[in-house]
């Protein structure tokens, strides 16, 4: 009976997915061919400007956790942080961001850098990501994660600590106790 029940359930789920047609205002896309409706992406990327002051000549690599820059405050510029649980957390860089700055003091705004490719890059704000690195705190599967105290890394949000009300970046899909280990997370910033 258990097997019959499981089989019936799986059959119903497969059947439901296979015959589900596009409905509602989105109207495009097909569940099996595309996996989703066009307005409901599985990953969302934003083109962002990286504050040159945190983007020195080495540039920033994919997998770096970034927060919204509250000094330039243009809604386009991001920077790294060393504040664990920073509530400004924005997402994770999905591409290497090269710098046009050699001394780390450049104050170019997004407008100043318009038309250039330096200091611009893609930031992932939603969906699966496996490029982020763990900070020194152990991270357990299924726990919420936030920006870590090491620039560009993630940390687990621990209930009852100062990071209780932290800006949540997403949810961990893997466990680690090793600082600097690559983590798989679901980003939920949108």
């Amino acid at each position, binding site marked *: *009976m*258990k097997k019959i*029940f*499981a089989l019936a*359930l*799986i059959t119903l*789920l497969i059947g439901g*997915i296979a015959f589900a047609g596009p409905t509602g205002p*989105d*109207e*495009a*896309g097909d569940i099996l061919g*595309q*996996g*989703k409706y*066009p*307005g409901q*992406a*599985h*990953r*969302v*990327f*934003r*083109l*962002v400007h990286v504050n040159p002051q945190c983007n020195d000549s080495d540039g920033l690599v*994919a997998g770096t956790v970034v927060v919204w820059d509250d000094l330039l405050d243009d*809604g*386009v510029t991001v920077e790294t942080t060393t504040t664990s649980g920073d509530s400004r957390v924005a997402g994770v860089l*999905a*591409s290497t961001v090269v710098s046009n700055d050699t001394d780390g003091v450049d104050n170019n705004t997004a407008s100043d850098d*318009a*038309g*250039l*490719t330096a200091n*611009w*890059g*893609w930031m992932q704000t939603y*969906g*699966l990501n496996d490029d982020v690195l763990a900070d020194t705190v152990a991270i357990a599967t299924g726990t919420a994660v936030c920006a870590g105290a090491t620039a560009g890394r993630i940390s687990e949000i621990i209930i009852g600590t100062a990071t209780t009300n932290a800006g949540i970046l997403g949810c961990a899909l893997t466990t680690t106790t090793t600082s600097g280990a690559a983590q798989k997370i679901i980003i939920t910033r949108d």
Partner: protein
Amino acid sequence: MNWFSLAFHKKASTINMKLLHIFILIILFSSMAFADELRVPISCYPTKLQAKFAEKGYKLDLSANDRDKNSCGFLESKGSSYSIFTYKQVTSKELEMIMRLTMER
């Protein structure tokens, strides 16, 4: 014993819930490999951007309704910004290429 009580019977529900979780995870992970949304905080001339994509060999539609088998995605202009919805997962090379096309003046 009816279906409802069977599903919530201690042993049966443990086994079935495990199966259910595995099944849902398979569906979720397989579907995550598909479409992406790229949000660009800069205005554009949609037809010019479409032409730039065409030069690189990518057919970018101006509406989801224009899709055919060669389409790679479609553009949705929002005035001062726009989004590109792709029909498959973008690669890091494609992200780089799209950024360069976007930033060209």
